[in-house]
């Protein structure tokens, strides 16, 4: 197990990052350009922006699944090469292996690290219990609800003890109640483990309720961060109750002023 990084160190740093894609008609689409972003160790940063603004692309750069065309990505001060081994990634989509049980899915990261089977199984059971899925170890994904599958995916991510947790609209597909439960669970676990979190969402309320800092991305093409808002709401938070705090509404209004412009711009630019 790694030692917790000293507070204040920079977990993730993007400098002048640019990433483009080939379009089907042979053109080039610049998704991100001149992106500068810093995430301190132990910080919970939420990234909001209109749909199609390249939020997932940015996350993929930090994950090492994509390489920038220009600029650099640093992880704990070292330039990132290949897959980011210090991060885990909670995808928006269902990515559990349907032919493995909940427990086998959670074990996966340990199996890849050649941890002994019994030990991996023991830890997987403990993690399933922590995300509230005791008794569901032997269920297959199709036998679980959408919220339960997300919990399994969360446990699958956390079992490898990542220093950085990348999350791409993980709760977008869930109903409101399940979603709030999951958000509170995430906050509780984050409070205990103090991971660095980069959380992408298009839901501004979710962003404020969860994070220490909200970063607003501009509409694409060539999206980049256009605003940063520290969230100074007291912790530990309850995502439902924190919304009633007057400071929450005030912050929401300030960020929305900026975000609304970008959303409208994205809407007009949309084909």
């Amino acid at each position, binding site marked *: 197990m790694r030692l917790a990084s000293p507070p204040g160190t920079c977990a993730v740093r993007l400098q002048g990052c640019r990433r483009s894609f080939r379009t089907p008609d042979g053109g080039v689409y610049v998704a991100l350009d001149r992106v500068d972003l810093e995430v301190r160790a132990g910080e919970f940063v939420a990234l909001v922006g209109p749909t199609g603004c390249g939020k997932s692309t940015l996350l993929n750069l930090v*994950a090492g*699944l994509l390489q920038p065309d220009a600029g650099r990505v640093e992880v704990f001060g070292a330039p990132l090469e290949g*897959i*980011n*081994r210090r*991060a*885990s*990634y909670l*995808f928006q*989509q269902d*990515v559990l*292996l*349907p*032919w*493995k*049980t909940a427990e086998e899915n959670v074990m*996966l*990261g340990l*199996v*890849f*690290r050649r941890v002994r089977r019994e030990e991996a199984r023991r830890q997987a059971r403990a993690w399933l219990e922590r995300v509230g899925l005791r008794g569901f170890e032997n269920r*297959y994904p*199709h*036998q679980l609800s959408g919220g339960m599958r997300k919990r399994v995916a969360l446990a*699958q*991510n956390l079992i*490898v003890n990542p220093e950085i947790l990348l999350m791409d609209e993980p709760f977008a597909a869930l109903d409101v109640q399940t979603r709030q439960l999951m958000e509170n669970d995430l906050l509780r676990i984050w409070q205990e483990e103090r991971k660095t979190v980069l959380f992408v969402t298009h839901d501004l309320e979710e962003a404020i309720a969860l994070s220490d800092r909200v970063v607003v991305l501009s509409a694409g093409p060539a999206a980049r961060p256009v605003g940063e808002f520290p969230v100074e709401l007291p912790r530990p938070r309850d995502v439902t109750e924190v919304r009633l705090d007057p400071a929450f509404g005030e912050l929401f209004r300030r960020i929305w002023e900026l975000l609304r412009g970008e959303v409208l711009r994205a809407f007009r630019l949309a084909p």
Partner: protein
Amino acid sequence: MRSGSLPDARWGLRATQAAVFVLLVGAWEVASRLRWLDPFFFSRPSSVAERVARWFASGEVYGHIYVTSLETLLAFLVGSLLGVVVGFAFALSPALSRVFDPYVKVANAMPRIVLAPIFTLWFGLGILSKVAFGVTLVFFVVFFNTYQGVREVDRNVLNNARMLGATDRDLLRHVLLPSALVWILSSLHTSVGLALVGAVVGEYLGSARGLGYLIHQAEALFDTTGVFAGLVVLAGFVLVVDLLVTSVERQLLRWKPPSHVEEAL
């Protein structure tokens, strides 16, 4: 997984199915006895049943069943193995698949039956020529399904495994192979069926043993009863093989949600 909760409805269905059988076979029997159908050309169910019973009583049919089973099994195993290996190679190497694409298309479009005489020439009248023939049928089904299975793996699923620390070998073992297996299993009935077709057609075209040979022999003697008896044995054989495949499939696809089609059936 099956709807075992409605036994009454199922018994009703079985009874109706049996009634259809009795009606058809009965009509055939009666028509033949009343000379509406010439027994020389159409035989009659009672004679066919008698013949089948005699084959089993004398034990002469077992050897034929054994040979056909062996050919089917070998054709299935060899064809599947080749299909999986080549399917993986093509799916993982775009260059390979681009170069060989037209050859695969042509080979698959070719009516395989024209190869049977060549295989007889190459491999003789024994089981090898039938196995080779069956392999050409099975291979393409398994090959295409493996190729598709590997290609259709969700990008996010692969990326998730990679982020969790999977090496290329881990990806193959934990993600790609099981994913291809799903596709291969979904075509299990087809590929086993084709292996059987290969065996029987091969025997029919030239051999000294097997169910295809039995039918061909009877045909050559204008022995309609023998032909129908051979078909009955073959049908029974197919039914048993299909039941076996279904049970294997159930074992291996336990994790799958029951499909709506299956539930409707």
